[in-house]
């Protein structure tokens, strides 16, 4: 039974048990003269939860773990079959057997051992899905039997359902947290592998980035150079240019919207600016590559500057444009959160509007504005598409915005494109870069959130 079919069956059972539970309590209550504890729907929901949740969890867990076990058994089967095999040979045979089973390769091209292994594999798969279906349905039926027995007019179904709902939500949050932790650990693990091949200090402080692209086996002898400084410098340069564009424009837009614009204009302009934030970054990317970069190069040529067609400047300007709505929208919110009474207090002392804004409103909103900027920086650091398209992939160590530079995220993409050995220094370097990037944005976000929280306490 496929997982889809099984899920649908469980849901159908669930729907039936909801109706059943509801009807049953109504039926029971009609015969006795007591006040029913919970609404009918709660009884239905209780039975349904008892049917659906255990069965589903079982099916999902089974689907997660069974392939691992089956894989082990298949290896053992192959290893036991034909004498002394190395690990690598077993791996190849395992892949072949699976490919054969999937119909990717033809039985004519493999040995009889493999055909046998593929059959064994198919048997295991079938048994696994049979067991999964049986187990899940059995759990569903057991859940139904035991929960419907509890149904009674005075049964506290409402409390039970509330409790179950809480557990489901706890499960959802735990899932979110656990996957994040899982990602971090795998990053850390791969990074550790990387540092076995490339010294930590060479990576963190090296000035040259040129991971060799090994096209043939014998070229892999030279692993290349993995000095990450040019990448971080490039990231920094582009982020800096982006902030130079986004912060002044975004802030002024926010001040105008929240302090000067009429209600009607504000209601129109704010969503319009926020639409900018909804444009996919790849669109910004080709805008940068096809419009802004040539424009810069031509106007640079007019005043005697030589700009490469891919420049940090073009990428930075477009990225800044992308971040304007981000900064203006967040800043507008914090400026609006400054109590009107402070503005009144300042005007009542004879402050003009611009004095009030500069001396009272903005200082009061400053923590929120700073955190908006930090969040924008962390987005700029993580941005990839615009840089790939507009700033290039050459790892130049330069502070000249007219040259082409590259960033951490772009190099991660470059490292992982194409067929790669999974444990080569090149692939692992991507994980190391990812980990460092993760830490930088994590710190920025934590600092930003702390500032926001502190600020929030001030006015409640």
């Amino acid at each position, binding site marked *: 039974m496929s997982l889809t079919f099984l899920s649908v069956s469980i849901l159908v059972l669930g729907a039936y048990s909801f109706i059943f539970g509801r009807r049953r309590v109504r039926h029971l209550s009609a015969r006795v003269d007591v006040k029913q504890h919970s609404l009918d729907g709660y009884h239905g929901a209780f039975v349904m939860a008892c049917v659906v949740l255990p069965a589903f969890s079982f099916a999902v867990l089974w689907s997660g773990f069974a392939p691992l076990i089956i894989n082990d058994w298949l290896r053992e089967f192959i290893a036991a079959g034909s004498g002394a095999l190395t690990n690598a040979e077993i791996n190849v045979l395992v892949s072949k057997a699976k490919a054969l089973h999937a119909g990717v390769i033809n039985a004519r091209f493999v040995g009889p051992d493999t055909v046998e292994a593929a059959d064994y594999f198919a048997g295991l798969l079938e048994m696994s899905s049979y067991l999964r279906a049986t187990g899940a349905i059995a759990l569903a039926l057991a859940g139904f039997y035991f929960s419907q027995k509890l149904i009674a007019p005075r049964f506290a179904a409402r409390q039970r359902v509330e409790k179950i709902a809480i557990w489901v939500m706890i499960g959802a949050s735990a899932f979110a947290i656990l996957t994040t932790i899982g990602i971090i650990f795998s990053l850390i693990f791969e990074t550790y592998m990387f540092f076995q091949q490339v010294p930590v200090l060479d990576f963190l402080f090296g000035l040259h980035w040129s991971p060799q692209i090994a096209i043939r086996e014998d070229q892999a002898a030279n692993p290349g150079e993995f000095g990450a400084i040019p990448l971080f410098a490039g990231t920094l340069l582009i982020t800096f240019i982006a902030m130079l564009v986004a912060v002044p424009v975004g802030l002024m837009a926010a001040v105008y919207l929240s302090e000067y614009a009429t209600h009607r204009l504000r209601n129109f302009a704010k969503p319009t600016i926020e639409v900018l934030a909804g444009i996919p970054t790849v669109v910004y990317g080709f805008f940068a590559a096809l419009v802004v970069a040539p424009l810069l190069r031509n106007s640079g040529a007019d005043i005697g500057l030589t700009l490469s067609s891919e420049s940090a400047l073009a990428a930075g300007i477009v990225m800044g444009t992308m971040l304007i709505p981000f900064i203006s929208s967040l800043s507008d919110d914090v400026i609006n959160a400054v109590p009107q009474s402070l503005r*009144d207090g300042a005007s*009542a*002392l*004879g402050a003009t509007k611009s004095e009030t804004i500069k001396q009272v409103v903005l200082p009061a909103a400053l923590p929120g504005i700073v955190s908006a900027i930090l969040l924008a920086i962390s987005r700029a650091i993580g941005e990839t598409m615009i840089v790939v398209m507009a700033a290039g992939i050459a790892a130049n160590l330069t502070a000249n915005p007219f040259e082409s530079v590259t960033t951490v995220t772009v190099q991660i993409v470059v490292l992982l494109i194409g067929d790669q050995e999974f444990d080569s220094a090149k692939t692992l370097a991507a994980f190391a870069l990812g980990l460092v990037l993760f830490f930088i944005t994590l710190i920025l976000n934590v600092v930003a959130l702390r500032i926001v929280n502190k600020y929030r306490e001030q006015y409640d």
Partner: protein
Amino acid sequence: MSYEGENKIQSTGVQVYYGETRALHGIDLNIGANEVTSLIGPSGCGKSTFLRCINRMNDVIEGCRVEGSVFIDGDDIYADHMDVVELRARVGMVFQKPNPFPKSIYDNVAYGPRIHGLAPTKEALDHMVETSLRRAGLWQEVHDRLGDTGSGLSGGQQQRLCIARAIAVNPDVVLMDEPCSALDPIATAVIEELIEELKSEYTIVIVTHSMQQASRVSQKTAYFHLGNVVEFGDTSQIFSNPKNTQTEAYISGRIG
């Protein structure tokens, strides 16, 4: 300057509109110098609106329009040549809810003198801050922590800080809109005492919803009802012997 009891503020036919609705229907009121005038009446009757006419704080409310004239020392404050910045330096205001700026105590008080360029030197500014805090009765409590932020003070202290901030620019008139409504009885008593002292230097107009407060602090009382001044006179007379039946009903607690 004017002597006590002389007309300091004259309002003639003041009407205020919020959009289409008229909140004040022609207020004629003469407010005497160096005395305390309280404005009482049921909520929504236009007391705050009238108070805001005296320092043109209505200007900052979208859709608000004022007709008629208000004279302070004979100057029409709604005349074209009137500079609101100067006007507000002459007419200070204290709000219902204490609203110190999120700055230090010192900077709160120094704010007005700074924007009006009143203190040529640091010493002069220090002196102004100290005098204002002393007049507001707050100096003893805060002189050793002028650098702390104003919002760290208690509600009553914050309100006195706002009074100090208002009088630091040396106004003639101080407007107070229910200055004690967010305070406990002890802080209220302190502020009432302060008002008593301040009236020798300033003309004070106070909106209050407390009859006792009006009778304790003010010499004159105006009773507002539905956007009109129904009765205006000596506080003692209004409270002991109101001429108008609505006034009497309000004072004796029959209109809330």
